[in-house]
């Protein structure tokens, strides 16, 4: 990050003090995930996710290319996350090698790509010579905390929403049918990973945290930007509806009791269940909407023809 947002001591003390009294600035309870708004664009795989003021846009695209030599049966899948000063002036252009940005991109990568959420074998066209390369471009638009959670939802919703053009294979020859010629085909999604991020605050001194038995540490879900700037530690868990832990990342920060971490994972499960259903439903509705529109168009065309 280029420069940090300046926070005064008074503000920091007030926010942590309020947390001790179980208040958050935006009035949410500790375990409350912000409402997730998912909007689809005109194209398949164009998703905007909003959580409070946080906005993330994801665009899924695909093209025909050559597979890796050592993986002839698999297509390519790439997630690229690049931050710009658009999300907030604290982000620098292009150079995302700073700690936070590496962690964000690595966690999204692990949660979705490494966990095999996308069926890459289904992207194979002709073994060893042609395959689809699917690309997810994550655009961070407005940062008010929870980039990982929002991006993860956006990418997976984008993949589920996306449809690639239909193809016909004649031996080595491949014909890609434009979207208006043949109904495009959806990607194979093997599971739906969702991330939930917990932020930890230490209301006592460091000694008590490390040596003490009281376990008074505060854990809140889905922190806003201010809370993120002040937090002592962070945990991101990725789960899917099959009750599988896809990925857990607590890269240092405030030491936390193992049982408390377990509790976090269980809390996260109820949240991911809800969000998974939301994504599935919204995609269904969006498809229905498109169908309606298409039917309208084709009937008009039919009328024109007659």
């Amino acid at each position, binding site marked *: 990050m280029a420069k940090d947002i300046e926070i005064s001591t008074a503000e920091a003390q007030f926010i942590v003090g309020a947390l001790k009294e179980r208040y958050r600035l935006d009035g949410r309870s500790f375990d409350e995930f912000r409402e997730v708004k998912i909007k689809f664009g005109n194209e398949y795989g164009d998703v905007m996710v909003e959580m409070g003021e946080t906005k993330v846009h994801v665009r899924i*695209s695909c093209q025909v290319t050559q597979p890796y030599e050592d993986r002839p049966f698999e297509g390519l899948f790439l997630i690229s996350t690049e931050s*710009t*000063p*658009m*999300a*907030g002036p604290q982000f620098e252009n292009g150079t995302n090698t700073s700690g936070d940005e590496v962690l964000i991109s690595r966690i999204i990568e692990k949660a979705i790509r490494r966990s095999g959420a996308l069926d890459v074998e289904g992207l194979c066209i002709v073994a060893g010579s042609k395959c689809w390369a699917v690309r997810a471009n994550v*655009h961070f638009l*407005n940062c008010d905390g929870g980039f990982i959670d929002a991006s993860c939802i956006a990418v997976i919703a984008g993949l589920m929403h996306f449809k690639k053009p239909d193809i016909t294979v004649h031996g080595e020859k491949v014909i890609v049918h434009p979207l208006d010629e043949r109904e495009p085909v959806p990607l194979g999604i093997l599971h739906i990973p969702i991330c939930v991020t917990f932020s930890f605050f230490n209301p006592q001194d460091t000694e008590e945290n490390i040596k003490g038995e009281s376990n008074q540490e505060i854990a809140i879900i889905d922190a806003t*930007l201010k809370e993120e700037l002040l937090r002592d530690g962070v945990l991101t868990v990725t789960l899917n509806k099959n009750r599988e832990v896809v990925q857990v990342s607590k890269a240092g920060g405030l030491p936390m009791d193992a049982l408390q971490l377990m509790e976090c994972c269980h809390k996260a499960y109820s949240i991911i269940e809800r969000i998974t259903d939301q994504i599935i439903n919204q995609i269904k509705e969006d498809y229905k909407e498109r169908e309606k529109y298409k039917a309208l168009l084709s009937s008009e065309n039919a009328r024109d023809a007659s």
Partner: protein
Amino acid sequence: MQVQTGYLNKVDGSSHYENKSVKVICSVTGPIEPKARQELPTQLALEVTVRPAIGVPTTREITLQDKIRGVISPIICRYKYPRQLCQITLQILESGEEETLFNVKELIGCINSTVFALIDAAIAINSIAVGVSMAVMGDGTFIVDPSNEQLKKSVSTHALVFQLVDGSKVVENVLLLDSFGNFDESTLFEVLEYGEKHALSLAKDFRKTIETKIKKDLFM
């Protein structure tokens, strides 16, 4: 054309611009403290960044940045902010054209959305810039805001930006004309004339959008 200003809240000014199949978000932050290498002793430094909808930025985006800077620089009162920096960041959400072949529509979308974002950020500007994208078809017809199919079949493509003053009714200068394809002198001047007419009528929409924004800001 649909424009929403103040779309993002972590930057000083922003706009969400949508025109036919082009969708662009622009953010402006400034005047802020520049990095030492960006600082200009007498004027405002501009950092223009364009991000494509698909893929990573390439020379294509660098060229877009260069053209946008060329249009925006003369309308900003740059000597009002010496040793300061203004960050202009553009995210293209939908390009509305085949990226490997064209960049007219994106360029115009970027420029128009930047004007709104600059106004939203209250950066001092001496006039407004209004851009129009055009295609000339094989039969000689002019099409404003052409579709991707029309672009592909066109004989020439034109991006025009005019600097408007005095109630946004008077053309002060041609800030940009960027034409590609196959055309001659008379077509070029017809395009300029046609584009100017269209830009002036578009400026009315600009003013309406600005008026709504001001009324909203001042609770009128």
